[in-house]
Every structure is written in C-alpha cells, then in structure tokens.
C-alpha cells in the first residue's frame, strides 16, 4: 500500500486543510465543555465536534484514500451518518436523566443525604 508521500500536491493541500479545520472545530467544541458554566449549557458543546468536526475529518480521509487507491472510497460516510444520528439520541437521553435528577432533588430538599 502506498503512503501519503505519494499524494499529488492538490490532494495533499486539500487533506491538510480539511484535517486542520476539523480538528480545530472539535477542539473549540471540547473547550466549551470546560468554559461554559452550567450543565445545560455544556451539553451544547460536543455537538460541534460531532457535526462539522466529523464531516471535515471524514472528508479529509475520503480524499486521501480515494486518491491513493485511485477509486472512490466512500465508507467514511458511515462515520458521519453514525455521528449525526447517534449523538442527538445519547444527548437527549442524558438531558432527560439530568432533568429527572434535578426535579427529584428539588422534590425532597429536607431529606437527609446518605453520606
């Protein structure tokens, strides 16, 4: 199998730009996890990485492997679809759980804690 040193210049530049954009978007999203104040604000942060971050890095991988193997390598689409379909489900269940815990705590404030 040929390595990345066999890529023609235009493909190399395109791959590099997509990779850096995707990684930067993902990092900004994850930084939001640390910088935002409350739980409900923080849940918004990882969706940056799962939408645009994944799309850019998968596009970089598709360009790189399609050019190297001189045929259309499309299976990275699966990762994009996986990310876009599963993350909302996981986050919605998580927010539901958080709300349930919040209301359950508010319902019995005088209850003594276990520890």
């Amino acid at each position: 199998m040929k390595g990345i040193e066999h890529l023609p210049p235009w493909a190399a530049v395109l791959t590099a730009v997509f990779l850096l954009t995707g990684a930067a978007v993902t990092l900004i999203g994850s930084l939001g996890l640390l910088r935002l104040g409350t739980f409900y604000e923080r849940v918004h942060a990882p969706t940056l990485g799962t939408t645009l971050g994944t799309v850019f890095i998968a596009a970089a991988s598709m360009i790189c492997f399609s050019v190297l193997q001189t045929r259309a390598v499309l299976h990275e689409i699966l990762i994009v679809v996986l990310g876009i379909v599963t993350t909302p489900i996981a986050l919605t269940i998580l927010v539901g759980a958080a709300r349930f815990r919040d209301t359950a705590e508010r319902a019995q404030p005088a209850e003594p804690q276990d520890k």
Partner: protein
Amino acid sequence: MSQLMLTYSLVVAQALLELAIGCGALRIFLGPRAQDRVLGFDTLSVNAMLLLLTVGIRTGEALYFEAALAMGLFGFVGTVALAKFLLRGELIE
C-alpha cells in the same frame, strides 16, 4: 513542499484532537455532578474516534477506519447505558 505541509498538519491535527480528549477527561475528573461526567465521556469517545481517523490517514492503513467505527458505536452505547443508569439506578428492568 505540499507533502511536508501535510505531514506537519497531520501532527498538528493530532495534537489538537489530543487536547480535545484532554478537555473531555478533565470534565470527567472535575464534573460536579454525574451527568457532567457522562457528558465528558461522550465527548471523549467522539474525539477518540476522530483521532483514530487521523492516525489512519497518517499511516495510510485502512484498518483504522474499522477501529474508529467500533469506537463510535461503543461510545454511543456506553453513553446511553450510563444515562439510563442515571435515570433509573439500574440498567436492566
């Protein structure tokens, strides 16, 4: 020239994604409440999936794609299971 640029940007992209994984890990350690920790775990698994894709481009090894796919699936299943656990306190009803 462009090859050199690609090599460097691969290293930089890997470093950025590792920082992003660090952010997720920090949220798991800091997280004031359990749901924050689960959220940190979800972010960490997505970032790890992207890192695996990047490593795949760097080595030219197509096998990393399968690893990334498995990572994404396990991250999703893990997050859902943990969130369910927070909701009920037990996994199998």
